[in-house]
């Protein structure tokens, strides 16, 4: 039961900091809030028996990716722009309404969704913990995606190099 409460707490934390992310004036604070969200999610992953995911969530996401964000924010020395134009705020208002509508739809979906299948393939790996399972699956059924991810990363690297390189 305690896990449930922890889960609640961290979920709430995630939501609060998510809101903080989008409402912070300073991008650095936003980034920091996002890190909190990610860590809170990592806790949830733990509770959902996904230890490995929780780990890389912290390492890759909260660690590497967000650091990159903060680094760029600092590098560019970005300050929040305050100027506002009338036309845009109308557009934004419309956008807000729409995203709320979208959210309502999603929540309706989630509320009325019924999970029919309860016996997934995980049963094949009965007794293993999730990390092992991930390892098993990743190098059997998900071998090709796993390899292909490397190409995604290569493309990312090329992109970063090509675009961000300032002097030829």
């Amino acid at each position: 039961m305690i896990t449930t409460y922890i889960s609640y707490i961290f979920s709430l934390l995630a939501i609060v900091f998510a809101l903080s992310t989008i409402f912070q004036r300073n991008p650095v604070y936003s980034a920091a809030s996002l890190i909190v969200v990610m860590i809170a999610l990592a806790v949830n992953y733990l509770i959902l028996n996904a230890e490995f995911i929780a780990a890389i969530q912290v390492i890759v996401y909260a660690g590497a990716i967000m650091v990159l964000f903060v680094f760029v924010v600092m590098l560019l020395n970005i300050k929040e722009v305050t100027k506002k134009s009338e036309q845009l705020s109308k557009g934004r208002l419309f956008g807000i309404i729409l995203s709320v509508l979208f959210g309502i739809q999603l929540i309706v979906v989630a509320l009325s969704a019924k999970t029919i299948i309860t016996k997934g393939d995980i049963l094949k790996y009965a007794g293993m913990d999730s990390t092992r399972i991930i390892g098993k699956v990743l190098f059997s059924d998900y071998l090709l995606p796993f390899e292909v991810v490397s190409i995604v990363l290569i493309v990312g690297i090329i992109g970063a190099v090509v675009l961000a390189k300032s002097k030829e």
Partner: protein
Amino acid sequence: MDFQIYVGIILFLIGTLGFVIRRNIIVCFMCIELMLNSVNLIFVTYSHQLKSAIGLMYAFIIMAVAAAEVAIGLAIIIMIHRLKNTVDMDQLNILKG
């Protein structure tokens, strides 16, 4: 049904909302990360619920992809900043009409 699904959806919604209201490109980009995270949460939750490993695979791969995405995205932002000295989205409307 695990409640984390709702959390995921709310986070996704917040990401969307953030993208809509913020003009700072980097913050918007963060919102996208937030959305990806929320999707990850949903995947993991479903994986837990369905006793299926596939959700975990997705979470894993999405993270990798997100990393690449961040690399490219930040590079583009740097490029923009270098050319325009701003990260305000509203300043970027040369292309229109």
